[in-house]
């Protein structure tokens, strides 16, 4: 059963340990400081918030969806300066 302890340490201690180290790195990098900005980081001027980017072939792409609830207060993502 001594192998079991190697396995136990390898998988159950080292892996979460590395995850904790990565978490500390992220904390220090300030990754958790501007969460809402990060959520917007996938949008830009080419593909802004409020514009759909997919449809069946032959349909109209980039149509604005009909507003079903009050529009998002943040209308445009703020891009980091180039």
């Amino acid at each position, binding site marked *: *059963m001594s*192998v*079991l302890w190697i*396995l*136990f340490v*390898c*998988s*159950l201690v080292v*892996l*979460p340990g*590395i*995850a*904790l180290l*990565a*978490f500390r790195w*992220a904390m220090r990098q300030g*990754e*958790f400081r*501007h*969460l*809402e*900005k*990060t*959520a*917007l*980081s*996938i*949008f*830009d001027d*080419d*593909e*802004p*918030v*409020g*514009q*759909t*980017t*997919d*449809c*069946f*072939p*032959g*349909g109209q792409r980039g149509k604005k*969806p*009909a507003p*079903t*609830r009050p529009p*998002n207060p*943040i209308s445009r993502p703020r891009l*980091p300066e*180039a």
Partner: protein
Amino acid sequence: MNAASPSILAALSPSDNEELAQRRAVLAEIDASCRGPLLFLFSGSIIWLLVGTVFALLASLKLHNPEYLANYSWLTFGRVRPAHLNAVIYGFASEAAIGVTLWLMCRLCRTPLLFGWIINAAGVFWNLGVTIGVVAILAGDSTGIEWLEIPPYATPILFVSYALIAVWGVITFRFRREKHLYVSQWYLLAALFWFPWIYSAAQILLVLDPVRGTVQAAVNWWFAHNVLGLWFTPIGLASIYYFIPKVLGKPVYNYSLSVLGFWSLALFYNWNGMHHLVGGPMPAWLITVSIVASVMMTIPVITVGINHHLTMWGSFRELKTSPVLRFMVFGGMSYTLTSLHGIALALRSVSEVTHFTHSTIAHSHQGMYAFFTMVMFGAIYYIMPRVLQVDWPSARLIRVHFWAVAIGILLYVFPLIVGGTLEGMAMTNPDVPFVDAVKPSVVSLTLPYLKTRSYSGMLIFLGHLAFAISFGWIVLRWAQAGRLARLKTSLARV
């Protein structure tokens, strides 16, 4: 190699490199840079998908029709089933996952694909490794260890190929031009790091220098469960977190929750595998720890579920117009369902009944197919037109694909969960015989469910054919468009 690629040496220490100071790349530029490697990886994965589905159908038919093709040793159940598993897991799913990861990494880092040749070399080695592995399994050379059947002479090829991809991932990450790390990137980076860890640990402990006794089972299930949870799940979730907001043009419902979801998965998931050994000759505390960790998975599952479903809330009409969204939402809903079901299956009282039944198979297909594969289909539908700059040729083929695989997998999973549970209840009941010519037995009870599975498999195969035709057609269209454009420029010159 891309003209903008820095040298590998510069890539190792990019800190004082002028590349970093460059603007974020334009999306179209990023998409175009991914074209070659993605075409290669996706073509490979679709071929493996068809091959794997044929093996799956054979295996399924043999379960209720044992004489079918029984006189060919290469096509016996014991070889066809692992051939199916390895073809779809390593051939189809991993290759598609690698392709989608590349594209997402490039887009999220805002950098064009650097060192395309690393990826192409990795792709060639990966396909070579899987081909040798699957042929070896059919020839009777399987290791006999579930999820690791590929014999030891093929695995190093897979590992080298994988290492190339992981190195590429690290380089791309270091050259990122985007300040913020989006949640998808966390998942992708983690998956790139976790897979080699679990794969090499399991290979060493099970194949190269095998441990003895029941510990083998422990290592085996630690690996098999983590392939799902630490390799496929993160890539699937990364895709959903990117594509649903992207397609809707709407940021994710609650970003802080997504961060919580990622870190709780990173901390708890790895402990889950032992719940497959409930009732086995293992230290009880080990299994209990695993069950506790499985129940703790409710935190990441619920946070991810809230985010996916509430981002969709109010936008369901988009499902009518967007094929990508259909696949993604189907995958997201399946993820919530399959995870909650899995948590229930980990409990001792439930496992007692469902263990060693078809219910487990239904559960794994719900995770690997209804969640992961559907998400990969959606991602490929989004990526290909952008990479090739050509639209999908036929909306009808996409609809056929979606409905065939969606109905097919529902018809697969739910009857089989019911059938497996009934099977388990019959097996724990001493009055029901296992096989009997006259009386109802465990075998006769499961037969209708097994037949349903074969029918659903045929439906799924039909969907895959539609997908493969679509894919071949769009590549053809792209080739023709390129030829036309070249013809036009040469005519203009004349």
